[in-house]
């Protein structure tokens, strides 16, 4: 089984030289720690920064320089600032190569729900609906089951939808999943996890040959 860093490290294999990448809050943020040495990837923060750097050293925090999670950050050589309309302009026009976000539920047709739980205080969708409506390459990083033990990979979402048929890949602590016409496709298993176990925890339609390899990191 993978821990959060394992999920992030698995997703980091999707990165390529020259990619512009938007990382959501939570596990997606950890992907930044696994950008391979020597690879040039620019991180987009939708509050108006391309080329997000690491957290600042203590004492050099700048209240005017934060990321979309409102954390103090830094710039890097080659960074640029822009306003919020341009930020979503580059997202909407498909310039961002990879978008990684968390989810509460993913449906077997690629629908995603990640902004609202009926009956609970609704905080808002932030930029999530814009991202899922437009990004070309959306990877979801999440836990496979919720706290009640119910699968988050479902035939269809039960929570209010964030976006339709947009997820390309899902990485959970149990494995890596793609999509075909019928539903989820198991691509790789997490170390020590059997296909039967994954099938049991996946309530949406899952295609598996039973021979899927374990996840390998370079």
């Amino acid at each position, binding site marked *: 089984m993978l821990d959060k860093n394992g999920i992030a490290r698995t997703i980091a294999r999707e990165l390529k030289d020259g990619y512009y990448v938007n990382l959501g809050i939570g596990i997606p943020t950890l992907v930044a720690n696994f950008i391979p040495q020597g690879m040039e990837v620019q991180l987009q923060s939708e*509050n108006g920064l391309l080329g997000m750097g690491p957290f600042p050293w203590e004492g050099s925090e700048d209240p*005017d320089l934060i990321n979309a999670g409102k954390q103090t950050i830094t710039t890097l050589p080659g960074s640029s*600032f822009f*306003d919020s309309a341009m930020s979503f302009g580059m997202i*909407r026009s498909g310039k961002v190569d990879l978008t990684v976000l968390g989810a509460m539920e993913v449906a077997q047709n690629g629908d995603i729900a990640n902004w609202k739980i009926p009956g609970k205080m609704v905080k*808002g*969708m932030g930029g999530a609906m814009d991202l899922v*409506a437009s990004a070309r390459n959306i990877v979801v990083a999440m836990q496979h089951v919720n706290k009640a033990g119910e699968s988050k990979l479902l035939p269809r979402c039960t929570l209010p939808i964030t976006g339709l048929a947009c997820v390309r890949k899902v990485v959970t602590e149990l494995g890596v999943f793609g999509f075909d016409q019928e539903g989820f496709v198991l691509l790789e298993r997490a170390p020590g996890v059997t296909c039967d176990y994954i099938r049991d925890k996946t309530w949406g339609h899952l295609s598996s040959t039973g021979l899927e390899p374990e996840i390998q990191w370079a």
Partner: protein
Amino acid sequence: MMHRWRPEAPDGPGWIWADGASYFWDSTRNLNPNPVNKIYTDADAALADIQDGATLMLGGFGLCGIPEHCIAALVRKGVRDLTCISNNAGVDDFGIGLMLQGRQVRKMISSYVGENAEFERQLLSGELEVELIPQGTLATRCMAAGYGMPAIYTPAGVGTEVAEGKESREFGGKTYLLEMAFDADYALVKAWKADRMGNLVFKATARNFNPLMAMAGKITVAEVEELVEPGELDPNTVHVPGIYVQRIVLGTQYEKRIEQRTVRTPLS
């Protein structure tokens, strides 16, 4: 603020050489006793005519780049029944949270409002109305207003409850929602530097919604950290031209509260 005369100015009209360029020194024009001056003495003066029931845009993302002196002036003024268009609603004791404490806000139009307990209380009790819209839609509806376009099409929210009751249209096989430009009485924004003509420059990610809202307001009030003389801002680096800005306020002693102070540890 008074126009500062160039010490090398000749007594009468004529050509002078200054800052590597030649200028025709026209004493009539330069002695204009009423030069353009959008500077107000303070935020209270700049916001004096805001009435109950007004629709306001407030710049900022989280607590970054919010017009904190304008918010303080609105709290002092006690104006009520406001509709506030702002990406977030501040925290309990800072930003728009201060206006919520005084029950001054009737409706919030935002994309994310998660950091505010008083907000939640007023929402659940029905005192406060909230319209949650996608962040890019919020930005683009501001942009449309500033660019003089009545509406825009965006794919954000298609198939979700955001789409309910909205006109949609297909372009190239993909569905888009029709979203209207905002119509705000005032835009209150925070910039880094300005001159008395209203030209604005923003700093780092404190830019966010500020230029868009500055362009969108019927009356735009910009509070700034630094006032400079006309000519000191490089025209190449002006983010919002003064034509969009009606009132300027110099703010002092900015608190600039940090919402999530994150630092690097020597080992990471």
